[in-house]
């Protein structure tokens, strides 16, 4: 059996080692030339792909829970969805969660993921108290906030070892419901204004119609929200619809994207409206359709996510959105988010500013388009998110991450650079 990542591209054969216990992992590391850890494959690109994969998902026991302080100790293969299933009804929620709950604890740390609340809570590493990790010498180290291993591992894309377990702090909630405000904006300027006006709200995100042109560029639906106080904590994951096969490629063309965006945008009332929605609807709308990645056909797709510093965000985004809408290559999903302060981790993606994420079907001409977008990103001093990437060049990548040399030196010093590698780490030489 071979494992793919979420974007289903590239499709390479790999040998899987199922992680079940520490002893056999140690033996595996000793006897394997080169490998990379793999969680639940929700990264879009090639960061978890290699000829040899350590499949960490089977390693998934809950180890302890401190009810007083809300601190959970669990093995790295535990899914965020499993944490929610166990704890929402007891009044606890993740302090930071990405737009899918189907990722492992190890994957959350390795990508130092962010959520709709980055501008107030920061990245996932904020809620990690400590973790244990097996290095290339087959030994287990435990590591706390502030350690160099911590700085390198959070956001380090699995390139510092196999994370085995982590202690994370949860946050108290009084309800599984979220009071949501939806604001429809006319253009990018208005979108920015609304983001800034709601900066104090814990959760915010905007869906951009990325095919809009001219005056309408940047028009979006902005959603802001916070947990309600109604005491309703009944939580069960919804049964999901599944897409059983790859859609034929003609199903997805500019026209259908246009129609989707149009409908999505038209569904919301003009101006401001208010809704009460549950956790899954607010945080994980895409999880409701299992395997939705198959919509893009068997050739796969990729997500292009970049971030720009705040002062340059408006100009840069306008330029990029103009290029995309002119290219006619659209995306069902174009998500715009406001970010807070950057952290100290060597390779974490967020910095204070705005990021845009768009899905593209893999097809001829796409990588050329993305290369021209890269140029704009660099011009405005931005960077690309590794966990979504499958094609960025070494040069583009490096310019975005000023701490890259520290990371490289650390890997070299601890002999990680020979044993731990993904297709991505080889491409961008980290």
């Amino acid at each position: 059996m071979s494992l793919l990542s979420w974007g289903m591209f590239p499709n390479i054969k790999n040998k899987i080692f199922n992680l079940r216990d520490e002893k056999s992992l140690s033996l595996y590391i000793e006897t394997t030339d080169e490998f990379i850890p793999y969680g639940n494959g929700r990264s879009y690109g090639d960061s978890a792909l290699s000829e040899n994969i350590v499949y960490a998902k089977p390693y998934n026991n809950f180890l302890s829970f401190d009810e007083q302080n809300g601190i959970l100790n669990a093995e790295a293969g535990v899914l965020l969805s499993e944490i929610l299933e166990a704890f929402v009804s007891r009044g606890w929620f993740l302090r930071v969660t990405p737009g899918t709950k189907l990722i492992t604890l190890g994957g959350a740390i390795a990508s130092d993921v962010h959520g709709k609340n980055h501008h107030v809570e920061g990245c996932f590493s904020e809620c990690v108290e400590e973790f244990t990790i097996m290095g290339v010498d087959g030994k287990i180290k435990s590591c706390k906030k502030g350690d160099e291993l911590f700085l390198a591992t959070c956001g380090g894309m699995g390139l510092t070892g196999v994370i085995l377990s982590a202690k994370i702090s949860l946050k108290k909630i009084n309800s599984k419901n979220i009071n949501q405000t939806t604001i429809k904006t006319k253009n990018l300027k208005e979108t920015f204004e609304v983001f800034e006006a709601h900066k104090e709200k814990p959760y915010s995100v905007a869906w951009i119609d990325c095919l809009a042109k001219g005056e309408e560029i940047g028009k979006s639906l902005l959603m802001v929200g916070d947990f309600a106080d109604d005491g309703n904590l009944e939580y069960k994951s919804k049964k999901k619809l599944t897409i059983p096969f790859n859609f034929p490629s003609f199903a997805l063309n500019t026209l259908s994207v246009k129609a989707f965006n149009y409908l999505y945008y038209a569904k919301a009332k003009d101006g401001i409206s208010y809704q009460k929605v549950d956790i899954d609807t607010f945080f994980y709308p895409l999880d409701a359709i299992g395997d939705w990645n198959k919509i893009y056909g068997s050739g796969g797709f990729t997500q292009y996510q970049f971030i720009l510093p705040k002062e340059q965000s408006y100009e840069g985004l306008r330029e990029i959105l103009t290029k995309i809408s002119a290219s006619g290559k659209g995306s069902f999903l174009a998500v715009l988010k406001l970010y807070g302060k950057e952290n100290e981790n060597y390779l974490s993606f967020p910095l204070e500013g705005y990021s845009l994420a768009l899905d593209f079907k893999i097809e001829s001409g796409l990588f050329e388009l993305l290369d021209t977008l890269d140029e704009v990103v660099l011009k405005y001093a931005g960077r690309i998110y590794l966990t979504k990437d499958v094609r960025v060049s070494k040069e583009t990548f490096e310019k975005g991450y000023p701490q890259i040399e520290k990371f490289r030196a650390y890997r070299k010093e601890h002999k990680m650079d020979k044993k731990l590698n993904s297709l991505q780490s080889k491409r961008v030489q980290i």
Partner: protein
Amino acid sequence: MSYVLIIGAKSDIAKEVARVYAKNGYNLYLAARESLELEDLKQDIEIRSGVEVKLVEFDITAFDTHEEFYTSLHERPLGVIVVAGFMCEQKIAQNDWNKTLQTINVNYTGALSILNIVANDFEKERRGFIVGVSSVAGDRGRKANYIYGSAKAGFSAYLSGLRNRLYESGVSVLSVKPGFVNTKMTQALDLPQNLTAQPQDVAEDIFNAQQRGRNILYTKSIWMFIMLIIKHIPEFIFKKMSI
């Protein structure tokens, strides 16, 4: 809430089955040899679901201990799920009688030994459910693993007879026929991704099928069609094939 007894609790499928039942509020008896090794799983399930988990010592091939094992459970279970299984390479099994015997005893004789006792009890009480995890390998003997397959075939036939007998007393019997599952047992095999299920999915399938009172579950469901075809290939052709 009532207890569910899981026989062969160390397997990867059993671990996930245990979690699913616990998530839905059932207390558990986890039965296996050297059951103390299941301490981590017990802990895991208690943190996740807050149900009671009891580890109980059980050897499926120690037939003469089964009666006492069952009657000494402090509360009779509402349901019993037999997940115990043993598979070794066909080449090894066909050259080593002890391995053949172990295959038969774990997959067939031992399962019958404990289920006979359970069935009599459930029939008397006129309640309860029985789940037996058999295999698609029992649907037709193939040269690649017919020793294992024949033991599972026997187990499948037993379950269907049991279902027939217990129908009147309202006790449900579910036969589960997994195809390839990504577990310790199949670790060394190169399995096709589209046909290989994850233990979590198998466990969810089992829970749903059992709760709905279904009779036979193929998981993944595509195996129902595959086995339908394989079962219908005429023997004079089948014997020449390598599948």
